[in-house]
């Protein structure tokens, strides 16, 4: 049966600098500083016993004070899952690091988040709209989006 790893469990495995990258330890997930995301994600991908070789989903949330990006990982090897979150405090120009360097599958998901929420992913190979057409104004899943038509 698929199990879900506890935030505490994973946090205890992180050492030194990586441990200081964690903002908050939640029951079944860790909130990471955006700047350190690729390192923490690389760690949980390559560490023995975690081996999260599959990024099953990435999505974004618009909160009043910040944007959150949620990454759901799964390990085909160990049959367990885990969640990482990052928070982009800058609501005017949110930027997050791209995970395409570790999981190529992040490509389309990040484009979707960029298209609908306007979070930019630095390091993404081809960050352009995916659902809306070029020339569309605004990002429709933002809470402050007004439909102009």
């Amino acid at each position: 049966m698929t199990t879900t790893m506890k935030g505490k469990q994973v946090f205890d495995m992180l050492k030194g600098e990586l441990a200081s990258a964690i903002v908050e330890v939640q029951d079944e997930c860790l909130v990471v500083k955006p700047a350190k995301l690729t390192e923490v994600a690389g760690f949980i991908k390559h560490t023995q016993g975690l081996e999260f070789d599959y990024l099953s989903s990435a999505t974004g949330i618009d909160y009043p004070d910040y944007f959150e990006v949620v990454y759901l990982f799964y390990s085909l090897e160990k049959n367990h899952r885990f969640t990482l979150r990052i928070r982009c405090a800058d609501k005017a120009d949110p930027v997050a690091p791209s995970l395409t360097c570790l999981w190529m599958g992040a490509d389309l998901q990040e484009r979707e988040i960029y298209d609908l929420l306007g979070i930019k992913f630095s390091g993404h190979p081809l960050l352009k709209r995916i659902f809306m057409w070029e020339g569309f104004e605004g990002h429709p899943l933002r809470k402050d989006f007004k439909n102009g038509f």
Partner: protein
Amino acid sequence: MEIKSQQSSMNIDLHEGRLIEELKRSSCEMMPEPSEWLDEEIKRNIIVSTVDKLLNWGRKTSLWTETAFTACCTFEFISLSSPRFDIARFGMEVLRSSPRHADLIITAGTLTWKMAPQIKRIYDQMAEPKWVIAMGSCGISGGIFADSYSVVPGYNRILPVDVYIPGCPPRPEALMAGIERLRKKIEKKSFTKVD
């Protein structure tokens, strides 16, 4: 040889003379009713009608539908085209993948702005005369997605719609009623009078 050709030219003259005499004789008689001189075979195969009736009859009984369906309403159309509801009765069972062959576009489904240019293009490619049925709330006004950022609020924003069929989705019976309306509309068209 010389004599022979004279003889044959004589024959032609005789034949001509007979024809003229016969015509002269018959010109003094009353002209018979067509039903008397038409032979039986032709009588059974001629219908007297007006141009309007004939062309409209042809158009309304062979409404070939373009296969350009965008969302869930399509399933009601599929059900209509299957034996239970059987649109073959109206001569509509032929679904055309090429707009050049189609007369009717049934807008079964939600139309997104991204799909809109394709639908418009299909419509433009269809040959005149052509008709549009807006099927379902989405086809009429965008339905529950009317306020959405991605949905066209009604096909009539991009195509001239002839008949509207409300419902989400409309049942096949409703679709048949809509098609009946369209047939009535086609019947009214006149080719000989200027509107």
